[in-house]
């Protein structure tokens, strides 16, 4: 896809996204969730796809943002909207700091040790949150009610999440083209060589994780308000649902590409919304099967598959012998 094609596609998607909540009022909640999913997949791909550091634990930033915003709204004494936005900002700041601290500890590990450490962090965060009375422990927290008619909140949050996802996408599209993005790709391709070439790989990795944490923190703060209830294990630090979905969506779409996670999130979310309600009780069985299926039979993802199928469309020159 060339640059102009991408811009046209982008305009079409933005127009469709702006119109969607008004055209399909019955699906407003699902549309808002879709943008959260896009954000999940995009932020996972910064470290997972572009840098080659697969994490299971990005969900901690989402949950941290959610709790930080809810606590600020509870104790800050502001009106709804200032409280929400300051809370989101606070959540993002705390998430970024958390990413810097945790990252400087565990991002020095290589490959699968890092993956398992993040798995541990994600679950530990959920367990700690469900034992900590200040944030409601196991019975969770309820953020303040959205002022206005019930249907309006989904329009507001739908556009808010769309805006967040769009900003994330644009910033990532820019970042991946800079020296920073190239450094991340160099780390993915061969970390030892990248280090030998003089790149401060640890710094780049930590910065990449902080970038992911920034957007996830912002998203989490608003998501808690939209969902209306924060459960430590099932919404905030939902490792077994959101945490796995973000990995899956990025891999399904094609990890290490800009559009792949977006595509993966669309395909996954739409399929899930259609099928999920019919699978009552068997959803996680289906999720397990999907994970195994994608990982075993389709690890290159949709875009990766398309790239090998039509290499010339992606700007690769095909040498004919």
């Amino acid at each position, binding site marked *: 896809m060339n640059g102009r094609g991408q811009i046209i596609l982008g305009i079409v998607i933005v127009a469709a996204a702006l119109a969607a909540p008004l055209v399909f009022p019955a699906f407003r909640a699902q549309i808002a969730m879709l943008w959260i999913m896009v954000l999940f997949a995009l932020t996972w791909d910064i470290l997972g796809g572009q840098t080659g550091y697969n994490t299971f634990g990005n969900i901690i930033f989402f949950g941290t943002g959610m709790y930080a915003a809810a606590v600020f709204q509870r104790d800050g004494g502001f009106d709804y909207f200032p409280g929400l936005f300051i809370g989101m900002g606070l959540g993002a700041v705390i998430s970024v700091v958390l990413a810097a601290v945790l990252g400087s500890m565990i991002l*020095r590990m290589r490959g*699968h040790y890092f993956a398992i450490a993040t798995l541990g962090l994600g679950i*530990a965060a959920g*367990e700690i949150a469900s034992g900590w009375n200040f944030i409601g422990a196991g019975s969770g927290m309820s953020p303040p009610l959205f002022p206005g008619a019930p249907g309006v909140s989904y329009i507001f949050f739908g556009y808010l999440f769309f805006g967040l996802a769009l900003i994330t996408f644009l910033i990532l599209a820019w970042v991946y083209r800079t020296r920073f993005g190239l450094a991340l790709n160099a780390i993915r391709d061969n970390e030892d060589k990248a280090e030998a070439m003089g790149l401060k790989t640890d710094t780049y990795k930590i910065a990449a994780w902080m970038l992911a944490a920034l957007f996830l923190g912002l998203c989490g703060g608003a998501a808690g308000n939209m969902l209306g209830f924060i459960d430590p294990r099932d919404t905030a630090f939902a490792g077994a649902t959101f945490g*796995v979905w973000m990995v899956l969506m990025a891999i399904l779409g094609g990890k290490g590409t800009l559009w792949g996670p977006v595509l993966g999130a669309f395909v996954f979310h739409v399929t899930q919304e259609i099928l999920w309600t019919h699978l009552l009780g068997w959803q996680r069985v289906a999720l*397990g099967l999907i994970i*195994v299926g994608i990982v075993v039979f389709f690890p290159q993802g949709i875009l990766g598959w398309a790239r090998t199928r039509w290499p010339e469309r992606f700007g690769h020159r095909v040498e004919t012998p």
Partner: protein
Amino acid sequence: MLDNLQLFVDAPFLLIQVLLDGILFGAIFAIAAYGMALVWGVMNVINIVQGEFVMLGGFITFQLTLWGIHPLFGIPVAAAVLFVIGIGLYYGVIRRVVDKDMFISLLATFGLSILLQQLMNQIWGGDVRTAQSGLGTWFLFDYTVTIGQIKVVACAGALILGLILILFLKKSRLGQAIRATAQNPRAARVLGINTDKVFAATYGINAALCGAAGALVVMAYSVHPYIGLPYTVRSFMIVIVAGLGNLPGVILAGLGLGAAENFAAFILGAQFQVAFVFCLLVVILVVRNTLLRHKRKYLK
């Protein structure tokens, strides 16, 4: 928290109680950990589904008690059933990811663990289950320290299983093939070992070990569809601390972990026990990494 620490000073026998409980619990971790080390060393796969195998072994034993069979028979039955399941999973899934990037196999086994969790939840429901073995309790030191006899039986069973495994790996033909494959799969293939079958057997044996461990867990403690992952993480920690293929180390690390965890649960409160396990995982990984870096500096 400080009140709980004060309790140790007021009542020193509690120290013995907590320590004994922890050590008896830890022996079971060691079994699952040895299976994980086996799969990791031979196949280079980190098996996240380990904990679910343990839970499944427990549920199978629980099912036997529903049919009126004594749970001690659950140990061989669970091991046999899990062996078959392990072989099946190997040929269905694991075989296709063995030679790929380690993260692929990590994610594949993670998918399997989610699948098994929910299947167990559908079959046996989301309640905590135990199997009554009908054994009594020993009282020590004027009734201040209590030990469930079944816990001692479980601990002894775990040690015996470990011994059987060592003998199997050292003496039997298949055990030798497994060790050869672990050392160098390519050379093993050249010398006529069917590594595919060795991998299948290794994975099956691992599952069987976990099943037996699960039977011990359900008798001495309890099982639940969603508490498998802590067992996986415990096995992983033990393997990291003890190293691959070091059985005495695995058993020691297992006992130590059990004791540490029990003390943490007593001091911090039981609701933080799982959080402690996962935090300890991160700490162990960080420490390991720092030590490795330190070593590398000397080499430079």
